């Protein structure tokens, strides 16, 4: 264990996992990059001699594609509304659960986390029915309290919001758990000192809890943002991008072009633009975090 082992044992242990990761994670990046500069499609799949190099045509075309433009705007809409919604929602739930601090409150962790573990297809099917304009529960409940019916998945703007509501419902549980874990890591003595100074609950929250959660908030906002940037299953199952491409996310655009239209090269170019966007945004967040605090 001390010094370098000459035996082959470590390679034996890591080889199976490493080979699979190289084959299905690293090699694909190279393949994606290469085919994004070609006109790879079904004909190319059947016979490689049909593939030709097209330079940056795919990137130029995909950026000029109005549907791609729309999918970027939709994805930004998901991020701008969805990230704060999940962040604030899961933080509030975590703070309340932690404040309660007893068995009853802890039991709610299970309730709020439950949507995160259940199958996305199944819950998307359920939510499609809940949102159904005629037979759905939600419009019925609105009607019962004399509110007008909402065109949940029929109106271009509302459809995006409806998908966000469902995405937030699924996404809050995991982040709540992360926040609870971070809350429990704050030393009790901080609060005791604050209480001696006469600080009330709200001021303790504002001046101790929130600053101490800085890293957790940063972590959750980055992972949540990446999650929304890759938003796929919900629009795929519930709206298939409609009405009028108003819910098509970038990920759905890539899937649609790749696997339904078999424009592999074109789709790969789109996926690289998404990849760069994710890297860029994550990098900017790290920069801002660095400036914002001296952690």
């Amino acid at each position: 264990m001390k010094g370098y082992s000459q035996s082959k044992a470590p390679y034996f242990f890591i080889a199976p996992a490493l080979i699979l990761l190289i084959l299905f994670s690293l090699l694909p990046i190279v393949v994606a990059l290469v085919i994004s500069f070609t006109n790879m499609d079904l004909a190319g799949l059947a016979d490689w001699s049909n593939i030709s190099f097209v330079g940056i045509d795919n990137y130029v075309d995909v950026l000029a594609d109005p549907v791609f433009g729309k999918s970027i705007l939709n994805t930004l809409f998901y991020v701008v509304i969805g990230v704060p919604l999940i962040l604030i929602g899961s933080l509030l739930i975590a703070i309340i659960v932690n404040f309660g601090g007893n068995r009853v409150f802890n039991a709610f962790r299970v309730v709020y986390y439950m949507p995160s573990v259940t199958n996305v297809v199944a819950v998307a099917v359920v939510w499609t029915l809940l949102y159904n304009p005629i037979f759905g529960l939600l419009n019925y409940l609105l009607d019962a309290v004399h509110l007008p019916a909402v065109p949940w998945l029929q109106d271009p703007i509302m459809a995006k919001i409806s998908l966000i509501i469902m995405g937030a419902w699924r996404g809050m549980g995991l982040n709540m758990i992360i926040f609870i874990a971070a809350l429990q890591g704050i030393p009790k003595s901080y609060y005791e000192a604050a209480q001696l100074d006469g600080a009330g609950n709200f001021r303790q929250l504002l001046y101790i809890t929130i600053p101490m959660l800085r890293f957790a908030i940063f972590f959750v906002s980055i992972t949540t943002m990446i999650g929304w940037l890759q938003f796929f299953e919900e629009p795929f199952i519930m709206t298939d991008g409609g009405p009028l491409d108003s819910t098509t996310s970038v990920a759905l655009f890539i899937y649609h072009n790749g696997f339904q239209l078999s424009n592999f090269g074109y789709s790969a170019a789109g996926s690289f633009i998404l990849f760069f966007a994710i890297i860029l945004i994550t990098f900017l967040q790290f920069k801002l975090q660095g400036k914002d605090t001296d952690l």
Partner: protein
Amino acid sequence: MSAHAKSGSGAAKNDLALKWALGVLLTIGGILVILPFIWMILSAFKSESEMQNIPPTFLPVDATFDNFKHLFTEMNFGVYLKNTLIIVVFSFVGLFLNAMAGFGFAKYKFKGGSALFYLVLATMMIPGQVTMIPIYLILNEMHLTNTMTGIILPGLVGAFGIFLFRQFMQTIPDELLEATRLDGASEFRTFMQIVLPISKPILAVQGILAFIAGWNSFIWPLIIANDEKLYTLSVGLTLLKGQYGGNFALQMAGSTFMVIPIIVIFIIFQRHIIENFSISGMK
């Protein structure tokens, strides 16, 4: 936010009132969160004609198991279930490979070790959308599209799992492994008989998560399987939604069939899953 350290009785009373108010708020939120599940389960036992009632009924008037029967007679849910279980079994194989790799990285110093570990971590940054198409092309070159092997391989191992196993196994004392080696055990036997039993807590959590992920697996079967014989429950359910768009009770039965086993497993093991994040998530 500790309520215990309060001294004045007025402040303590205030805290208690606040606690009750927040408790009520949390309960209302909780009911809203599980409402879709309740609606799903109740609807699964209604007849199709009852589903079309306006206004909708909350409790089934005439509870029936027919919808669940139809899943297996009119749809191929038996086949989907079998395929899903095959994937679940192989996700445990993947778990074992992750554990092996985690051990290799945790307990050996070897040439290129740390570089390879960073390589593993780097794969976590790659979004699925980028690898989706090339993986399909690679599997196609390997003649593995539309096969169970092709569905299983891409998601078999994962960097995050390897990372968690490595973190845990680093805490195993070297002396323990040294002693086993002196007894003449091979490295692999040491791993099987010493390391794995010690790693039970992390194996339990990862095992539960692997089960859930396998049961829910959707994207690879969707992309790789052209043949309905290879569909999983998730993919079958999208097919059901497409083919029987108006049969809401049948759709709810399909969803219930998928969701209930996971909810049961989750409730049984929730402490392990939730505490996993407290241990490994935020450090």
